[in-house]
């Protein structure tokens, strides 16, 4: 950990180095100097160190080199001053990468080590990391360090960086049910996530409004539950593409299939799955949450989640469990009878617990871990000790920091989202409020704090689709990204603004439609098509 004294000296260093250190998110340890090295695009190469565990053929890094070459030098026609003879000490024509542990074909996980060291000095231009995932983070940092002079020359300052994330779970939630997001929107988001060192794509695939996930075991779910079964769906191929695209960027895909509430769109494709609501002694024709009183329900879930467990390689699945409305269950005589039989009395939380527990058992049997929304904890569902609880409610039943305290004191791991609902918009620079959240600012022991594995920025889709997703997400989500990656002492708003504003311009340069933070301009503005 970097002490605060050191921190202030770093701040000063950054101020002197100017744009050269407009890094986002800010690394754990950095030293830069005014000494510059010229980079010649036509001769520059990313190279594997001879003793690197990853070598040519490592898909994750081979493709990353290609991406970062394009990001750095774009389609510039190479009419640059040619390097004369052999390399001078003031030139760099390669970044040498050394990865310690092999693992190019694996998926990133919660336990993946993302540490890296980046050294640019007279002797070397060197990126060292434990894993390929750390190398990806280091390449991103490297790409942010390379600058271009007004004359068009690329250069990098002498720099020493040792970096690692503060939290291992740094997520972004997209909701593809309230509005369908075209595949291109998702893939583009994954790119920008990588620029911000996010590492979890929480895919809230389905909800009341629509069921775009095309299931091969239950094709009727999409056929009858999507907005349009020909166009507004994610085929198996689409899902595979998202997962692989994410993997290549060191991003996990955490799929959410929220039950027993938020499931209206499941109903048309699976008759008998949802609870028929009653008006007096007659069915009203409307439906409520998943029917927890029928064996069929659990047979369906068993088969469905078997598919999901095999389609999504991540160890974790998100099982939802939020906002279950008891009114419909209460109205249904079959459910009432079931409650009596089970001895639940009038306590529908017990019924909810019964459902969730059964579901959790099914999913654990498939060798998966799970994340659930906080209600599952609030309603005292018995869950396995390794369950991850996602805290999303700002005020109720308690303020979110209190909830973090309660969840961790019960020994569960926690994810924070409550202050980071980016779909909520207000006038002005709201990124500051987002940025100033300290995820560990609750009462609790160091053991409790250690149970906070990270957080997620959430972009719910009621008012968001591909028309406004990108400017609404970026650079606001960047504030969350830095909070989850950088040292907890990195909280100065002026320092953040000085880096975030140029980073936003860099996003524009990379083709991302990131909205402005305040008045001003970028050299390269967003190009209207």
């Amino acid at each position: 950990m970097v002490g605060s004294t050191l921190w202030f000296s770093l701040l000063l260093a950054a101020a002197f180095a100017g744009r050269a250190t407009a890094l986002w998110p800010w690394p754990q340890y950095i030293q830069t100097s005014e000494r510059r090295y010229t980079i010649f695009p036509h001769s520059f190469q990313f190279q594997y160190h001879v003793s690197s565990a990853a070598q040519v053929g490592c898909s994750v890094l081979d493709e990353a080199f290609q991406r970062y070459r394009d990001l750095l030098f774009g389609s510039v026609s190479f009419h640059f001053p040619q390097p004369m003879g052999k390399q001078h000490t003031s030139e760099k024509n390669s970044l040498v990468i050394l990865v310690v542990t092999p693992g190019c074909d694996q998926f990133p996980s919660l336990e993946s080590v993302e540490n890296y060291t980046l050294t640019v000095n007279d002797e070397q231009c060197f990126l060292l990391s434990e894993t390929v995932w750390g190398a990806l983070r280091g390449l991103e940092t490297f790409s942010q360090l390379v600058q271009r002079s007004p004359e068009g020359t690329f250069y990098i300052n002498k720099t020493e960086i040792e970096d690692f994330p503060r939290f291992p779970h740094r997520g972004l939630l997209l909701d593809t049910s309230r509005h369908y997001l075209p595949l291109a929107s998702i893939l583009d988001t994954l790119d920008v996530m990588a620029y911000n060192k996010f590492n979890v794509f929480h895919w809230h695939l389905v909800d009341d409004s629509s069921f775009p996930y095309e299931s091969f075991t239950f094709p009727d779910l999409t056929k009858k539950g999507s907005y349009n079964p020909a166009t507004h769906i994610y085929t198996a191929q689409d899902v595979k593409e998202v997962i692989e695209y994410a993997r290549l960027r060191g991003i996990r895909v955490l799929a959410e299939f929220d039950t027993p509430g938020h499931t209206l769109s499941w109903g048309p494709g699976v008759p008998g799955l949802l609870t028929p609501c009653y008006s007096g002694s007659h069915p009203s024709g409307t439906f409520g949450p998943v029917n927890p009183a029928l064996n069929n329900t659990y047979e369906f879930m068993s088969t469905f989640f078997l598919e999901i467990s095999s389609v999504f390689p991540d160890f974790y699945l998100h099982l939802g469990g939020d906002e279950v409305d008891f009114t419909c269950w209460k109205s249904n005589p079959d459910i009432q009878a079931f409650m009596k039989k089970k001895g639940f009395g009038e306590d529908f939380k017990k019924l909810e617990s019964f459902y969730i527990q059964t579901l959790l058992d099914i999913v654990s049997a498939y060798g998966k871990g799970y994340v659930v929304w906080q209600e599952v904890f609030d309603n005292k569902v018995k869950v396995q000790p390794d369950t991850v609880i996602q805290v999303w409610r700002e005020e109720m039943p308690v303020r979110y920091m209190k909830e973090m305290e309660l969840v961790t004191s019960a020994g569960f791991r926690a994810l924070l989202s409550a202050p980071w609902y980016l779909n909520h918009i207000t006038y002005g620079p709201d990124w500051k409020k987002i940025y100033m959240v300290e995820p560990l600012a609750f009462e609790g022991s160091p053991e409790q704090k250690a149970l906070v594995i990270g957080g997620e920025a959430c972009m719910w889709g009621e008012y968001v689709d591909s028309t406004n997703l990108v400017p609404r997400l970026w650079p606001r989500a960047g504030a969350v990204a830095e909070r989850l990656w950088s040292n907890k002492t990195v909280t100065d708003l002026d320092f953040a603004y000085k880096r975030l504003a140029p980073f936003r311009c860099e996003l524009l340069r990379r083709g991302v439609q990131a909205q402005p933070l305040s008045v001003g301009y970028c050299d390269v503005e967003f190009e209207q098509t």
Partner: protein
Amino acid sequence: MEHRGLGWPRLSGLLELLAALAVQAVRASAVAAASPDLCLWPMPLSVQTTPRVLHLSPDNFFFSHSSTSKAGPSCSLLQEAFRRYYDYIFGFYKWHHGSADLRVGVELQQLQVSVILDPECDTFPKISSDESYTLLVKGPVASLTANRVWGVLRGLETFSQLIYQDFYGTFTVNESNIVDSPRFPHRGILIDTSRHFLSVKSIFKTLDAMAFNKFNVLHWHIVDDQSFPYQSVTFPGLSKKGSYSSSHVYTPNDVRMVIEYARLRGIRVVPEFDSPGHTQSWGEGQKDLLTPCYNGKEPSGAFGPINPIWNTTYSFLSKLFKEISTVFPDEFIHLGGDEVDFNCWASNPEIQDFMRDKGFGRNFKKLESFYMQAVLDMISAINKNSIVWQEVFDDASKLMPGTVIQVWKVEDYTQEQSKVTEAGFPVILSAPWYLDWISYGQDWKRYYAVDPLSFEGSQEQKKLVIGGEACLWGEYVDATNLTPRLWPRASAVGERLWSHKDVRSLEDAYRRLTIHRCRMLRRGIAAEPVFTGYCDHEDRM
């Protein structure tokens, strides 16, 4: 009272027509609701549709000039519009060619356009321009009749909105009869190109979307404190030194292109050169224009509003506005006049002396008025009319009659409307329509529920409300978020200013607006969603 060419006689005639058609309009919306595919936005004055459908074939349909029309193929404004609207109607579905079976039912082969009076093909739209039209849709030839080309443009938009595709993909339209004209003659969108620069392309997009919503004024807040992107021929230093960069400027050619693009869509371009406040960027390129602020006896190095006491100020402004009046053909120039900070003026000893000489005492509002009056005189001397922000009215003892007052402060804006109209000045309403103020949820409903005439006042006072503007200030807006932030939220304002005052059902508006939004998407406008749901064709698909 002088009305300065605002066309009041015609307008009051229009109001009578509105009243006469009110009953009909109510009946029409009932009919409209019965047909799920009729999703016009903004709602025309009178719509009668029947269940009888006509089919259109992209290969066989065309726009034409009626033999009695005063406009013909030499009217390039209409020729261009025909091409655009053919594309809006069929363009997206070109792959459907030939797939439709038109043997069943009646075919609509032609929309015949007839302009009754001098068409005004080659002129610029004005506040008094006649935008009324009637549209009779029947087979095989439909007719669109209007006094001027401006009405034809509005009618073409309506016609394009009537056409839908049935289950088999066939282009279909119901036999209908539409009589339409706007409730207010000034229906504007304000864009701010100083806080953030907007490319000409972005402005074009905005003009396209404006036409889809029957807006007819682009209020171009072109310069402000932050930057001066307008390239002046007379004073090139202004943008050279006052713009964000040499690529963040509007050349004379850019401005001409914007004006022509707008004209072809029946949209006026009203430029705003806001002074004496909001002028920091002017100071970069024009020495000795801004007031040097003092810190005690010494100049502090900072500058305040334009210095109102020097003759050089007025000779500069006179030359600048002379240029502006020739560059921008509209009869109106917006002079700003808002939020003048008196602190700097108060600190400056020369200004203090001037105040004493003029007998203004410590009342800086008098100095502000002195300045504004001089600029207003300048504008009237070059035969233009002025629009100003409400402070100019609030702070003035007397103001030139006919000056249009734009009400923007949201606190007690209806009272302000009463005051301004009671004093006999025309009003543009913006206060409830600051679209840069965003919040979570369906805020369009709030914009929609506003009635611009809800203030206390006589019939004569109400007639002084010439319209309103949706304002999208640029502090947090640039090309990245302009379109989804503006549309379809501004559409709510568009309907409020065009449609009859009784068109206010939120439920029906929601139904029509969601479909109108999908229509905008199809036409390449990235309008954001109204709420949960989908469009057949999403952005980026």
